């Protein structure tokens, strides 16, 4: 028994740590070869700057702002995508009507959406609009394909017995598509954080991580820029971790 746990420990914790170690060592060596903080600061310096930021209240306001914006825009995108994917699963014509729009949204260059939104919206709103628009087709396609996995015979049967729509939704669709949708949500959410930050940089949004990253770029303060970057990575990890926990809970509950 003890042997098994130590093996699991080795597999799940030790090897990833080795990977991280190789990455940090390479970074450290590269930084000491270049030896110019403006180009590549050492990991030690970057983490030191991150810890210094921890003491600043504007840091937490910015992180909270970015987190809030990510969650709001993700929720908007999520609600629209899940509603439309279920409706188009139930009514075939809607699916056909939506298909060119989804393809269009998926192929519009991200930068075009960003640049146009910057002109149209206030700089607190623009990042949310941008990432909601860009995340939507990803979520929609993910949800649609998990709905396809439902056994059509069960759907047929429920149609035959005239099961009301909302009962179908909660007792058939959601339990079926829940776990695989969560994988879509997991990748969509951290993608969303990245998009929000990119848009914040360009929009100079007040109380945002992107804005401070932009300012540290203006001051050629690369160490601080990497400090903010590390925080952005931690934020994405944290959100993915929350989803993983939810996923485990659902599987256990099932």
């Amino acid at each position, binding site marked *: 028994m003890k042997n098994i746990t130590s093996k699991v420990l080795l597999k799940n914790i030790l090897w990833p740590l080795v990977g991280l170690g190789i990455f940090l060592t390479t970074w450290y060596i590269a930084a000491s*070869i270049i030896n110019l903080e*403006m180009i590549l600061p050492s990991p030690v310096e970057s983490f030191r700057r991150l810890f210094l930021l921890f003491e600043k209240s504007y840091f937490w306001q910015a992180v909270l702002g970015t987190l809030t914006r990510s969650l709001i825009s993700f929720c908007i995108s999520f609600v629209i995508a899940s509603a439309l994917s279920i409706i188009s699963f139930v009514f075939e014509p809607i699916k056909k009507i939506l298909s060119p729009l989804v393809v269009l949204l998926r192929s519009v260059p991200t930068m075009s959406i960003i640049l146009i939104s910057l002109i149209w919206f206030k700089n607190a709103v623009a990042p949310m609009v941008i990432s909601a628009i860009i995340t939507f087709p990803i979520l929609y396609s993910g949800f649609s394909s998990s709905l396809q996995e439902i056994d059509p015979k069960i759907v047929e049967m429920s149609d035959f017995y005239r099961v009301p729509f909302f009962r179908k939704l909660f007792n058939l669709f959601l339990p079926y598509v829940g776990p695989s949708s969560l994988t879509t949500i997991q990748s969509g959410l951290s993608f969303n954080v990245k998009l929000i930050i990119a848009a914040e940089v360009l929009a100079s949004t*007040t109380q945002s991580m992107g*804005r401070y990253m932009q300012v540290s770029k*203006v001051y050629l*303060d690369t160490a601080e820029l990497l400090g903010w970057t590390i925080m952005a990575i931690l934020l994405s990890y944290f959100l993915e971790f929350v989803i993983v926990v939810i996923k485990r809970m659902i599987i256990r509950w099932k």
Partner: protein
Amino acid sequence: MKKLVFIVSLLLIISIPLILLEGCIPKEEQSEITEINISVPDGAPALAIAKMLKENSQFEGYNISYSIITGGSTAINAAVNNNLVDILIAPTNLGAILYNRLKGSKDIKLIANVFNSLLYIVGKDSSVESLEQLKGKIVYTIGEGATPDLTFQYILDQKEIMYRVTDDPSDDEIGIQYESDASVLLPKLNSGLVEYAILGEPAVTKTINSFGCYELFSLNDLWNEVTETTEGFPQASFFAIGDILQPEHKDLLNWFAENSMDNVDWVNNNPTLAQETLEDNGWATPVPLNTELISRCNMEYISAEQAKNSITSYLSVLFEMNPISVGGSLPSDDFYYQG
């Protein structure tokens, strides 16, 4: 495990020759002709080399190329880091930042101040005559953490006007909001989403000509008012970087200074010609040059020695507001080129 050892050793084998090679590549032989690159950012700074671009001015023993770089301060930094430029125009404080950041690896010196502030507050309400009247309003500005932002905050501090970064200011304070650049701010000014904005030339002229905006304040005038000076603040300067600062290139720098001084008069006398020249060289500024615009640019070539006082006091102000805005410490005397 064997695989891992194999991969790691493979990586090492590949990387060692790369590292060694760098030291072994022979330095280019000292040829008779020295290549010199002179670059200026797009927008008003390009005016400072218009005449040289037009005449493709050359100095004996050198092959000088002139270029206009688009992409703002990021592009300037990239050009400096990749050794693509010997003389350039940059915001004066960015030069100080580069001086501090590059210490020990590359020399950078300020050779002259070329532009005093070319920043203005514009708006559609021409009745605004004092900054006090902007209380309760939002002023949008470009260049967060850079010259427009810092000088405006300094002026407000000195005038004891309260301000805050917010889109919902109360009646006794000015709200400040940021936009990444003029191209985003201009459509919002046009549509009325933005009422007041701090912009640099030539965007200022664009708003006056096309959107019915008025020039409400010149940051130069406000600066003079609060500092009790008459010179304005030295917004952008010429910098020389690297080998060109060696004594043997002294004649070249003197020649460049003379040409730059001639250029100021030439641009003032030949606005149309200047515009044609710049447009042929990739100037992406859709505003017709006129004497009004040129005079708002406050272009004047003042050598480092003469400009040193106004530059040090300007940099000290920025330093007091936020030390990082000049790179953490005030540059010492060797920052100023002595011809």
